[in-house]
């Protein structure tokens, strides 16, 4: 799979080696660069075209190898699985959003880049992605419990952050908005306040 990596993506084996080295040196959440950022990446500037529709990779090179991308999609769907009424995160390309996020040239995403690549590497070394879905769910549950106990300790810290980004990435898509129950963003001739059944539920008089 590594052979299929695009130029923009760092070779997986190299990345793994770098991260392994970093993981040994610094056992918990750290801000040291785990993988060198593409230093040619620049932001969109202070006057970008706001009307254009952007896709991950349009503005700066992405990071994931093909296998990392696949693994991230598996993780995405453990965090946001499909239901009858709504799709899974990977169906909406949330794993590519994660790649865009960790590849960002802005300082706000730097710590996430290190943590997420380190976490992904950790799961790969633990052969997480070779396990059954049930086993994967159970490992996620352990990380979720660890995260609630201590949000700074790896790998719970990683799971917390990737959960935040995957769920945020999901609920900011039209499908995710529909799933969470957002019904706005449509031009309306009038705004009449909440419907009668809502007022009734709250025991409020009509306006």
């Amino acid at each position: 799979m590594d052979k299929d990596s695009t130029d923009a993506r760092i070779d997986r084996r190299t990345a793994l080696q770098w991260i392994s080295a970093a993981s040994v040196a610094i056992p918990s959440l750290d801000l040291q660069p785990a993988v060198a950022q593409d230093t040619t990446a620049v932001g969109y500037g202070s006057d970008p075209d706001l009307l254009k529709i952007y896709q991950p990779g349009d503005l700066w090179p992405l990071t994931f190898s093909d296998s990392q991308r696949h693994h991230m999609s598996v993780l995405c769907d453990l965090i946001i699985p499909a239901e009858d009424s709504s799709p899974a995160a990977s169906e909406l390309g949330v794993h590519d959003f994660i790649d865009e996020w960790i590849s960002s040239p802005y300082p706000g995403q730097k710590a996430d880049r290190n943590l997420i690549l380190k976490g992904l590497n950790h799961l790969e070394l633990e052969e997480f992605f070779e396990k059954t879905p049930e086993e994967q769910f159970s490992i996620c549950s352990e990380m979720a419990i660890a995260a609630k106990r201590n949000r700074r300790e790896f790998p719970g810290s990683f799971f917390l952050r990737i959960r935040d980004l995957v769920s945020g990435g999901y609920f900011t898509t039209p499908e995710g908005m529909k799933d969470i129950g957002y019904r706005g963003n449509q031009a309306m001739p009038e705004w009449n306040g909440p419907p009668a059944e809502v007022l009734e539920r709250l025991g409020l008089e009509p306006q």
Partner: protein
Amino acid sequence: MPVIAPTEAKKNYDVVIVGSGAGGGQMAYLLAMEGLKVLVLEAGRMVDPAREAAMFHTPNQAPLRAVATPDKQYGFYDHSVASGWEIPGEPYTNISKEEKREFFWWRQRMMGGRTNHWGRVSLRNGPYDFKTRTRQGVGLDWPISYDDLAPYYDKVEMLAGIFGANEGIENSPDSSPGVLLPPPKFRAGELLAREKAKTLGISVVPVHRAILTKTQDADRVPGKLHPGNPSAQRLLAENMRMRAKCFFATDCHRGCSIGAAFDSTTVFLRPALKSGNLDILPHAMARKVTVDGNGRATGVVYIDRRDGIEHHASGRAIVIAASSQESVRLLFNSTSRQFPDGIGNTNGLVGKYITDSVSSSFSAQIPALENLPLHNEDGAVGQQAYMPFWLNKELQQGKLGFSGGYKLLTVSGRKMPNINSGRSFDWLSDGDGILFGRKLKEDARRYYGSILGIGAQGAMAASDDCYSELDPDQKDQWGIPTLRFHWKFSDDELKQVAHQQESMASILESMGARFNRPPAIDDPIKAVKEGGKTIHEVGGAIMGEDPAKSVTNQWCQVWDVPNLVVADGATFPNTADKNPTLTIMAVAWRAADRLIENLKKGTI
């Protein structure tokens, strides 16, 4: 007359205006409508909200789900160009790095200025807000009273288009009958807050915002605003007919391509350009106001930001409205033989008495709002309801331990999700771990829309601790000296913040809230927003009755230089518990009337 380059500028104008926002735009509109030849210098580029606002885009269509970055400091879709607290090449400094001692200075480098970047809340200052010294024994009085400004509030409201209701509230005045547009209906959370806060003696009433909830009356209003001026009436009527009413979707901060939300470009500059009396010069960074041998203002030296070349624009009168602190900086940098410390600064008061809203916020979850039947709660997107200050008597009697009132704005509803929408519910869930999987989706559906936030914005009185001055060492990329800020919230203001926190918690409690943290009653310094972060800063060239104690008179004319007018928030002697923009426009209108009279009579 159009948007021009420096080489196309006329040799002389009646008035040169620095800045195109609330104050500069208002001035440009009125002067041009009255037939005066006007040049507006704007440091940013032309921006057309009708073509450039990304109104319906969802965050997944933007880089990084539209989160704020150093390039777009209020989020990707915010209708701001080259703007922010930190702008490359345009530094400022703070004297102190201590907690909450730094001032954060937002600059808006685009046509229309900060009117592009605004929630549109438009409440009038009340009678008490002009008499802080007399009433509370702190800060400064204005040289004018509410009654002096009331007719101008009516005019600004009719021109801009403001929704709201006349509720007869103490110190939050009604408008004249027929001026306001109808307020939008309340959302579920706002109705619930109104019902429950009653028990605490707090009323929840419609806020006022500069948004058209119905189309303006283009047959009636122009005649009221421009009596005896048929050409102005025609231009205004035409512009009013180009503005559509709100379609109850999309955040005003994204800009409004249909002209329902007020901004200076759409409401002031568009009709003013059509008058043929206005030239607009973008990319023009003002460097100094020039004076003649008699100390009379003659023009403005500006730098074309695209090539760094310096030019001069001449006018019979000069208006500066570059935003309060940029105007202060321009006054400081306008040195001459007559004014070695800066124009208007003979008494050393330029830069003094900066104030901002004293702000804090608090939120909690309201179980009654869980799992409501799905419905669209966009409404007027943003604030629809507020709680005017309810303890004016106690405040004046000194019973509260602080001297400035505050308003509370509710932020409720099933808003468009953002990057944080999936991470907010762990504390509400009973599981052992953080939420993920089906349980996350279930809980997100249950709790989404049930979080109610309240934001407090309070009055701040002038003090000796908050001011700006020229940095002795630093210059910007064009070699123009930059500002250095001094900032400190007083104990009085911190007591106000503690009270804000307590009130917000009580209101939420009355609604049956679940809390994930206590209000910061004992530690208000943690809760108060940094100076400048509310982007309501005013002062630095305050108006007054006494030339020894103020920089301008009540018509915003610099005492030393009567043909120099400061038309933004720099003249405000305090910050009320109201947002400043509406008052900036009303004060600018009053100043414009005086300036027009003076120019016509030839008295300046």
